């Protein structure tokens, strides 16, 4: 792999940038791999990367029906935080956040992790108590957060209207090392590193069937032929139910459209990420200057990557109330992605009824922030058959009623 650096750039600049190699190879699939990962989104690529890096398993194919990073990895609002309430969530998201800290250096690819800080606004007494609870939990979980005053909120976000009148800001849960990263770069950086380890990333390759023998996975049938493997990881977000069906089991989840939008770019005016759950909206400003805004999910099953406009309307009016200055900005683009939502809205990282097959899904509206942690944990689960980070996220938890319910703390899509 040609290392990226300012010196490499300078060198290439002198020769018309002719010497840059491909970031990742585009191989034809081999007949058999130790591990096949279905889905070359962030989670799938990260799983492959940590299989190689942490466990030395590099005879790996990551197969993708479209283009890598083309699902929710490239469609989300890029928020990274770990201020979750429940222990299992805080553990995996904080692992993830900490991996983001060094991801650019680990991958030798600038993913622009920007720990600019995330505020979750408290606008009712109920929310104040809820976030104070989260702050206490986080302190014991090793997640650095604090509950801050309205004045401090205003200081961090001068463009915010903290006086209401409808929902005055009563405080906020502040995670200084939360932030954002460049979403595409996360997928590309992992893909480049996986390719460099000799893994095959096979794009435009759709899985049409899961092959099993005596209850054990043996491979997949794809649009590029049969690919055999010892272990199979399904990491396909909104399409998880379909993959599970091919393997003969069902998942406790539904796929719905989640929407987002951006404004035209303006000069920097907001340095932190703000989430306002009472009015249902969240916003950050990208390095390009666009205000990046997350909307809500539809209540019905949908695979169209288009959502209903009223969610955009509801989100925008909420944010105008919170940030009156955005009223005279313009919406540049709105889009949707398909997210898979489980019964408790927490993810599933699990063994399955099919031996050797693992699923990593159900990240719902909050998957981007989890990419490295999810990949780390999933790799451990696939390599060792056990990971403390995935323990509580088994698909069997629903039967026992052992939910991981984060809606306790945050009722908004994130």
């Amino acid at each position: 792999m040609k290392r990226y650096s300012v010196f490499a750039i300078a060198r290439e600049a002198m020769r018309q940038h002719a010497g840059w190699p491909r970031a990742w190879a585009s191989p034809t699939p081999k007949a058999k791999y130790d591990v096949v990962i279905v889905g070359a989104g962030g989670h799938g690529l990260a799983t492959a990367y940590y299989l190689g890096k942490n466990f030395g398993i590099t005879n790996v194919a990551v197969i993708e029906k479209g283009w890598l990073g083309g699902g929710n990895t490239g469609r989300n609002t890029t928020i990274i935080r770990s201020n979750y309430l429940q222990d299992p969530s805080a553990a995996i998201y904080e692992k993830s956040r900490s991996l983001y800290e060094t991801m650019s250096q680990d991958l030798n690819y600038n993913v622009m992790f920007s720990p600019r800080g995330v505020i979750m606004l408290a606008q009712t007494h109920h929310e104040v108590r809820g976030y104070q609870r989260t702050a206490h939990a986080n302190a014991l979980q090793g997640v650095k957060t604090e509950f801050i005053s309205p004045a401090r909120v205003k200081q961090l976000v001068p463009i915010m209207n903290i006086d209401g009148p409808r929902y005055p800001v009563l405080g906020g849960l502040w995670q200084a090392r939360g932030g954002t990263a460049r979403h595409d770069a996360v997928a590309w950086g992992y893909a480049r590193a996986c390719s460099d380890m000799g893994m095959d990333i096979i794009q435009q390759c759709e899985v049409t069937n899961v092959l099993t023998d005596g209850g054990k996975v043996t491979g997949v049938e794809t649009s590029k032929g049969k690919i055999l493997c010892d272990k199979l990881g399904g990491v396909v977000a909104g399409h998880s139910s379909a993959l599970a069906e091919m393997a003969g089991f069902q998942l406790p989840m539904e796929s719905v459209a989640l929407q987002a939008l951006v404004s035209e770019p303006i000069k920097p005016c907001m340095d932190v990420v703000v989430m306002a759950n009472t009015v249902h909206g969240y916003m950050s400003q990208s390095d390009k200057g666009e205000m990046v805004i997350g909307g809500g999910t539809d209540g019905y099953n949908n695979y169209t990557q288009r959502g209903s406009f009223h969610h955009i309307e509801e989100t925008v009016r909420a944010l105008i109330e919170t940030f009156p200055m955005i009223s005279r900005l313009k919406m540049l683009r709105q889009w949707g992605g398909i997210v898979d939502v489980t019964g408790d809205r927490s993810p599933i990282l699990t063994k399955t009824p099919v031996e050797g097959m693992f699923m990593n899904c159900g990240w719902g509206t909050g998957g981007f922030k989890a990419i490295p942690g999810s990949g780390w944990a999933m790799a451990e689960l696939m390599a060792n058959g056990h990971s403390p980070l995935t323990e509580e996220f088994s698909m069997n938890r629903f039967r026992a009623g052992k939910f991981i319910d984060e809606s306790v703390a945050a009722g908004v899509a994130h």
Partner: protein
Amino acid sequence: MSTRLATAGRLLDRASTMEFTFNGKRMQGHEGDTLASALLANDQMLVGRSFKYHRPRGLVASGAEEPNGLVNMGAGAFFEPNQRITTTELFEGLAAESQNHWPSLEFDVGAVNAKLSRFMPAGFYYKMFIHPRPLWKHVYEPFIRKAAGLGRAPTEMDGSSYEHFYAHVDVLITGGGIAGLAAALAAGRAGADVLLVEQTAHWGGRAPVDGAQIDGLDGDTWVKETVQALESMDNVTLRNRTMGTGVYDHGYALAYERLTDHAPDQDGPRHRLWRIRARQIVTATGSIERPLSFAGNDIPGVMLAGAVRDYAVNFGVSLGDRTVVVTNNDDAYRTAITLKDAGLDVPVILDARPTADGSLVQQAREMGIRVALGKGIAHVNGAKRVTGVSICLQAGEGSEIEEIACDAVAMSGGWSPVVHLWSHCGGKLIWDDAQSHFRPDASRPPLGADGLGFVVPAGAANGAMSTAEVLVDAFQAGAAAAKAAGATGKTGRGPTGDTPKEEPMAPVWLMPQGASYKLRSKMWLDYQNDVKVSDVQLAAREGYESVEHTKRYTTLGMATDQGKLSNINGLATLAGALNAPIPAVGTTTFRPPYTPISMGAIGGEARGELFQPLHKTPMHDWHDANGADWEPVGHWRRAYAFVRGAETVEQAVQREVTNTRENLGLLDASTLGKLIVRGPDAGKFLDMLYTNMMSTLKPGRCRYGLMCTENGFLSDDGVVARIDDDTFLCHTTTGGADRIYAHMEEWLQTEWWDWQVYVTNVTEQFAQVAVVGPNARKVLEKLGGMDVSAEALSFMDWADGTIGGFDCRVYRISFSGELSFEIAVPASQGRAFWDALLEAGAEFGVMPYGTECLHIMRAEKGFIMIGDETDGTVIPQDLGLHWAISKKKDDFLGKRAQERDHMTDPTRWQLVGLETTDGSVIPDGAYAVGEGVNENGQRNTQGRVTSTYHSPTLGRGIAMGLVLHGPDRMGEVIEFPKVDGTSVKAKIVNPVFFDPEGEKQNV
């Protein structure tokens, strides 16, 4: 230099002169100008700076596709960044400033980036700024953010208002050019309800500029007559300054009407967002000209040929005195002819095609214009404006044949249909080789609710490129849409147009064909984002082969014009680099809106008082006038406390608790839900809904009940009163009224539909007041009426009667531990009743109290609060509420769920009281720590507080909490760390802190 011509300007009123400023400089224009045409008329060629390299930027286009002409406009509450000047109508006093430069437009320090551009190819930031780690956040990123970003951020609250308008029509036609007009004629005559919207202030689109002849009339005349004809039809509505912005599922569409942008002094909303349900949508959105990729194609003075023509014909503005035309098609000859007709110099038409002999070509030649075939531009000369071009063979590698001095270049790479609205909701495209563009594939339209297509493309938007074809195609489209929408009238004959014979265009994606890297690195694809041919080629070489990868890696098409000019050229460049056919490379997804629309318009009227509905009780105004410190509870506001004089909110709360315990308190309890459940099966139904038995409740009596979800978790609680054998009144929490009503209807309609039960929500029929405290009975007796003695109305009784002349229903229930009557009167009498209680209660020390006082009093009594002790993960068994869970019932909602392993786990945390050892208050949300850490290194916990207060009654901190094996550990002390690193210790106690025998409430 660009200047105003002495004549021409079909849209101008030259008699009316308007003053405006640009970067503080005073300028003049005319009514009918756009800001763009007025700036050109003042020789303001330089209008902005590009995003990445801060290159000087002039206008490229004349319409919505313009990528460069963006300004900061207005001031204060009316300031707006990124206003596109080609679509900004000039008005008197307009004040604009250019963007993205420092210190000035002419001298921009950021332009050093252009000098360093070789170090900043596509994706350079992914490859650098990696080390050392902290520098990204603190040095590199802030620098990049500051350099990017275009317009200034507004700082004030928007001074304008906005509105929505819901329209239901048979046929929506977007685009008021001749295609839209022809389609409207057909659909209107067929009898359909038609809404025709046009983004500009003018009808007719490009046709009048291009010299179209229709039905024997010149373009302007035909447009005028047709608009009149349409306006006379009752079933047709025309709206100009209204852009079709998005097409969504099931025939939903948005249109964006700019009501006062052109006349800011006018009253009324600034923008109107049309939310349209159309049976059929006709997209008559025209086409957009493509630039050509030659070196220096971004230098101010290089403009699309059609735009050069627009400025000349519509606004009487010339871009330059000597304009070189460069083209791969016949249409650009119209520009040469127009300029020549206006008395301007066209030194040469460079036509990249080896041959060209169409009638427009002949006409140009006849006018004496030099036509150079097979030639192209090697590079444009000039820095902040064009000074000349170097000519080369298109087939060659760019060797300069000749240099021609000029001050403007008009380029045309052919035209691409505007397919955005067609594509938004899933309409598919096909590649048209002859025109080298994507156009709608009529066989794969967006599908509506009925599974049939609901969008019909028309005219140039459908790939029809001549006037004659456009009219035929659009009229048919209008007729087809009307028919599909159910209209049955006759459409008659459509308009016909004359078109000069044109020869085929030739695809030219690189000029010259064999251009060197040096030239390719000066060929702009995306002007705003600074994406060049060499960038796309680099992306392809590095493996970013998918069109989405290339777009994202290079930022091609991600600027505010969303690739209207750059997409096809970028695709073709990528296809070339991959050696693949263009259609195999595919397109990126088209997403709404077509051009950016204001956030204000999206929010509509919902701001200020109308942001969200505010639910008010009949006593709301009294509270507001008497110191209420409001707390939002759902969409209600409840008084948290009533603050008197100089006291703090906390002091008010403590006073209210003490007064209610010692004298008399009033609580507005109107927000609590009240549901009537009636029918022969009502008892059976409530037995399913509540964990306890309701069917055994006697008429005249009340019972506290718990409701769980089917998943077992506690969701609501409240007092049920049995009115008669068949009728119950169920109280819910404030937030529960609508939710529980819906919950009841759901079960009745979708599971137990054969049960005879009706439910209705009477929450707002009643104003309800809790009269609480040792003096409660006294004040009621003073008001007089029904017997409220302990004998007549014992604890948990209810009765109808009158008090103080008010018809009322009195419930003898208590959430405070005090003697308490909750009294419901009709809502229309609520305020009068409240006033009467206050007046009569004066001698008994009456004081209203708020929700926080309520909370403290219930916590002193160990009563749970939904939302505090519960959070969606708590079952009644956790709260020691076994007494409220019937053992006798076979079934109730949540019962099966509560049998699951984790629900019966003895290690579930249980409710206890907590008494701090030092009398302080445990912080809200604190956890009790256990020993050691878990497998993920997190500190083990053994409980948490759910409610914690300073009790004025007991003079100390009290709390309720859920603790591991809590009820078995009475007297044990556990530790709650605080966020500041210290901790507070608390003893586990019974949660009933006050009057455990109920002596106060049972008097």
